């Protein structure tokens, strides 16, 4: 395991991140957008763990932070879903391009 280079992890997480960005920008369904958001967060979590392991072995802050971010993102997702449900109840619609009332 130790012979896997740092760059490989970073490439994986970069791919995940930009897949998330792409999904965020191109999907219309809010739930899919939410999933893309999770993808970006997970990419960041991977970076935390990897940097901790390679740059500061023997310390655990990066691991803790990853766990912490997972917890936060879970809470955030719950709120986001609540918002989406409310939007659905009010507008009968969860497609972002049709939920565009907040403008000039």
């Amino acid at each position: 395991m130790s012979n896997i280079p740092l760059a490989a992890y970073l490439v994986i997480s970069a791919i995940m991140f930009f897949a998330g960005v792409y999904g965020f920008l191109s999907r219309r369904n809010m739930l899919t957008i939410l999933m893309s958001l999770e993808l970006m967060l997970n990419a960041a979590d991977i970076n935390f763990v990897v940097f901790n392991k390679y740059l500061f072995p023997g310390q655990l802050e990066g691991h803790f932070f990853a766990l912490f971010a997972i917890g936060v993102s879970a809470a955030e997702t719950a709120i986001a879903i609540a918002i989406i449900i409310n939007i659905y109840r009010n507008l009968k619609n969860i497609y972002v391009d049709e939920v565009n009332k907040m403008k000039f």
Partner: protein
Amino acid sequence: MMSYTLIIVVLPLLMFLVLGLLGSKMKPAVAGLIGTLGLSVVAALSYFTAATYFLSVGKVGGSFQTIMPFNFEWLQFTDKLHIDLGIMLDPISVMMLVVISTVSLMVHLFSFGYMKGERGFQRYYALLSLFSFSMLGLVVATNIFQMYIFWELVGVSSYSLIGFYYTKPSAVAASKKAFIVTRFADLFFLIGILALSFYSGTFNFQELTSQTGPILGQPITATFMGWSVVSWAMMLIFIGGAGKSAMMPFHIWLPDAMEGPTPVSALIHAATMVVAGVYLVARMFPLYVLGAPDVLNIIAYIGGITALFAAIVACTQTDIKRVLAFSTISQIAYMITALGVSGYGGHEGLGYMASMFHLTTHAFFKALLFLGAGAVIHAVHSNEMDAMGGLRKYLPITHITFLIACLSISGIPPFSGFFSKDEILVAAFEKDILLFGCLYFCAGLTAFYMFRLYYRIFWGDSNKEYKHTPHESPLSMTIPLIFLAALTVVTGFIPFSKFVSSDGMPFETHIEWSVASLSILVGVIGIVIATIMYRKENKISDKVAGSIKGLYIAAYHKFYFDEIWLFVTKKVIFNYVSRPIAWFDRHVVDGFMNLQSTITNFVSRKIKFAQSGEIQDYAWAFIMGAVVIVSLLVFI
């Protein structure tokens, strides 16, 4: 010591708050009763204060001391300069307490009958309380700034009481006129206060007027346009007083102020507020007489001219309240003149004492005249003399009390006006024969116009037909008349110089029979002429008016002072000062601001389409922005 005097001032304020806030929930009679009871307490305390002060506490070592039962620092500017609020008792403030609370109580009582059934009865009593509070606060002021604050407060209460019938356009116009004219004069007052306190470093009356104080002790040598700054300051302060006391040329508001309810005219525009200017000069008298004698001389002449002018105008007016208003102006001018011719200390200060004496007696008999006029108006429902005549049969009590007041103001002994007017004439005679002649002639005119008024109301056309038979007023209105008539008879016998003098030292006066007999003579002549002309309806008065037509018409139009003021303000100031300023404001100041808003508006209209409402557009912009920034950081 004597800290109960605080109640005298605070109680009317409390009543104002209670009546003002809860008045609409009370029955009118209850509100009136609360106001009257409160004022009775105030009056009783004032009498007690006066008795204590004049008879025991005040006199230390043969002269009257100034007592400050209460004083606290309200606002501090510098170490020395601070505005205090407090109570100062000295002979004139104690005297004023008695005068104000007596007249105010009588007016409260009188209004019960006079204002019965009026809309806003509670509001009326609340405002009366506010006025009493402000006026009492004014006279006990410890420093000139406190006086100024209360000075404005009486202005406000006068404004709201003149405009009490606020649905009547003439009343609204009159209240605005009164407020604006007096406020305009008060501007000079304020400048005077600031100038005086700038050079002396204090507002306090005691320090200002003390002989070793910052002004009289070390004379200020600074001058401005050839006049010492003290003279300037005192002149400006007097202009403030002239505005309140309706001296020429600021008198124009007082006749119009008669639009208010008659008891209000009796209280504010005859007995108390309009003498505030006299009181102000008396309060700062040492400064005038020792620090600025040239100003005092001007004051004397302004007073003399105003007295003559107002007396002439009073002879031609037909609205009974306006006659009384001009008579008030004339009598206040008497007081001002008396102050102007006065010296300092002992018999030299006779004018000062005479002025305060006349202030007191005038307050009582003029309040009586106004309340009598109120009773007449109440019976006839008109202000015009032509609607009256022969009323002595219907209003016996009003008739007798009115006659007493007329005799008093005409200077016929043994009524109070004789004594005080005599002292003024003596003081003028000793100082300036020209002013004496002026005042002497006025005394005759006063007797003439007062008896013209008297005859035209109560005599004249005795068989006049009235739509409703006039009837005597209810008890609540006749009791104040009788009480004030009794005061008018007795106040003349008070040995005033024993209590009030320019330097606090009592001195002896006696009636100068040479002058007194002359003044009685001229009074009697005035009365006789009035009797010939007006006792029975005849054509003599028209003939006389015809023979001096020019003067008569000019006097009837009040010597065109209103027109002059209107010309100055409307034609000159509005056109040549206000209009350019308004143009500058509208086009330059507003224009700059409008330009800014127009630009903002234009730009925002152009860029508002960026706000599409599509989240992904925003996210796209955000991410692209992030990419650009990161690449800048990385590659540069």
